[in-house]
C-alpha cells in the first residue's frame, strides 16, 4: 500500500463560522496561517513551542496551541479565534465582558489566549473554584501576573456574571 505524499495540500475548514478552503505547505502551523495568510493577529506568537499559551485557539471547541497544530491537521474542523468570540453585532462575549469588568489584564498580550482558554475552561466544567481555575488555566502565562483578576473573571463568567 503506498501513500501519496504532497508538498501542497488543500484544506477545507471552518474559521469563525465561515467555511473556507486554503492551500498550504504542510509545515504551515495554524498560528502562522492565521496571522500571515488570513490576517487574524489575535492569536500571538509568544514562544512558538507550546510553553506560553498566547496562541490558544479553539478547534472543534477544544483549546489548543496554534503553534503546535498544523493547518493540515484541521481539515474538516471548526477553528475559533478571539476575533470570532464577539457577536456579529460586535457585542462582547460574556467572558470578554467579565475580563473587562474584573481588570483581568494589564498589557493585554496574553489576553486573546486567556479568553479562549477561559471559554473552554468554563465549557469543560473546570471553572468551579479558585484552585481548579488556576490549575486548568496554567497553560496561559501572564507576564504582568494578572492571575488573581483572571481567576476572578473566569469564575465570574462561569457564574453568569457579565451576562446581559
Amino acid at each position, binding site marked *: *500500500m503506498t*501513500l501519496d505524499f504532497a508538498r501542497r495540500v488543500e484544506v477545507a475548514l471552518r474559521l469563525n463560522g465561515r467555511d473556507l478552503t486554503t492551500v498550504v505547505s*504542510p509545515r504551515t502551523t495554524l498560528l502562522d496561517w492565521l496571522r500571515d495568510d488570513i490576517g487574524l493577529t489575535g492569536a500571538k506568537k509568544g514562544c512558538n*513551542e507550546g510553553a506560553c499559551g498566547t496562541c490558544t485557539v479553539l478547534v472543534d471547541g477544544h*483549546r*489548543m496551541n496554534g503553534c503546535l497544530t498544523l493547518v493540515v*491537521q484541521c481539515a474538516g474542523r471548526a477553528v475559533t479565534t478571539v476575533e470570532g468570540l464577539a457577536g456579529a453585532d460586535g457585542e462582547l462575549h460574556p467572558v470578554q465582558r467579565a475580563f473587562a469588568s474584573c481588570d483581568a489584564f494589564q498589557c493585554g498580550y496574553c489576553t486573546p489566549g486567556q479568553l479562549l482558554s477561559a471559554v473552554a475552561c468554563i465549557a469543560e466544567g*473546570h471553572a468551579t473554584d479558585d484552585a481548579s481555575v488556576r490549575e486548568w488555566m*496554567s497553560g496561559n502565562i501572564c507576564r504582568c501576573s494578572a492571575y488573581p483578576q483572571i481567576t476572578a473573571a473566569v469564575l465570574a463568567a462561569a457564574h453568569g456574571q457579565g451576562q446581559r
Partner: protein
Amino acid sequence: MRDFAYARAGTAESAVGTLGDAGTSVIAGGTELLNWFRLGIAAADRVVDIGGLDELRGIDRDGDDLRIGALATLNEIGEHPLVTEMAGALASACLQAASAQVRNRATIGGNVLQRTRCPYFRAEEPLPWPCNKRDPGSGCTSLAGRHERQAIFGWTPDCVAVQPSDPAVALAALDARAEVLGPAGPRTIPMREFHLTQREAAVLGEPMRENRLGPDELITGYRLPASTDGQAYIKVRERASYEYALVSAAAAVRLAGARAAGAREQGAAGAREQGAAGAREQRIAAARVALGSVAQRPWRLAGAEAELPGTPLTREALTPVIERAMADAVPLPQNGFKVTMARNAAVRALLAAGGAS
C-alpha cells in the same frame, strides 16, 4: 521549520508501510514533532499523519483489560470514568502532564516517545556544544556542566538524560503492555521494559537507543490488566502546575484484608473501622511502585515490591524499605537531592494509594 511532504494514512498498515524509509516521521498530536523540526532534532522529508485513524481511538473495557487507543489524548484519558476507576494512577499522571491545551493535542501513543528535556539536547541547530544524542561521539556536555535534573540510575558517561513522561511511569507501574504494529504484524511490549537506560542500550550495542520500538513500528494502543488496587501518582516539581517533574512516583497498593473494592473506598472504610485502633494497623498485601525522572526509563522498585507485603502502611515503616530498594542509586555531583526526593515521593505515593493520606 524545514519543508516536508505530507500524506494522511487511511489505515495503520498503510502508515507502517511508509516507515521503512528513515526519512519518514509519524505525526499524531504533533506537540513533540513540530518542536523537534524547529530545533533540528528530527529532519523528516516525509510526514505521515495517523490522526484520522478511528481504529486507533477509543478507551474501552475488553474482557478483564482496559484498552486505550494510541490516539486517545491525555485529557481524554485523564477524565475518562473507566480510567479513573481501573487505572487511577494513569489518569492522575495524564492530568498532571503539560497544560490543558497541550493535553488536548498530545496522544498517549506519542507521549511515551517524547525525548528528554535536557537543555543541552533541546538546543537549536547548529548545536553550540557536544551532545551524543544529537551528534553521536561528540560527548556529553551535561556530565561536566549542569546536571541537577539528570539521572540517578542507569546513566553512562555518554549520556545522563532522563525520560520525562508522566504517563509512562504509571503505565510501567500498572504492568501495561504497548500494542505495536510493524511490517511483520502486531506484537506487544511490556511498558516496564519499553524504555532503555543508557546502560541497557550500551549492552544492546546501540548506546543512543532510547526504547525497544523498532524504527518501522507504530504504537497502536495499550492494554492494562484489571486491578482493584488503590493507586496514586505523585509529581514533585518546581511549580504547582505545567512543569516537568523533578521526580515522580506511581504506586498501586492492595491492603491486607481488603475486599475487591476501589481503593478510595478501602481507605475511607478502613479509616472509619479503625477508630481507636488507628490507621497504623493497616498492612500492605501487595504493592507496585515506579519512579519517574530518575532514569531514562520508569524505574520500578522491584526490591521494595518484594519486601512490602506485610509492611504497615506508615511513613516510618515504608521509608527504610524504599531506601534499601534505592541503595544502588548513583547520583551525579549536583543531583544527590533526587535520591531523597524520589524516596519520599515513593513513600507518599504508597501512602496515598493505600488511602492513608
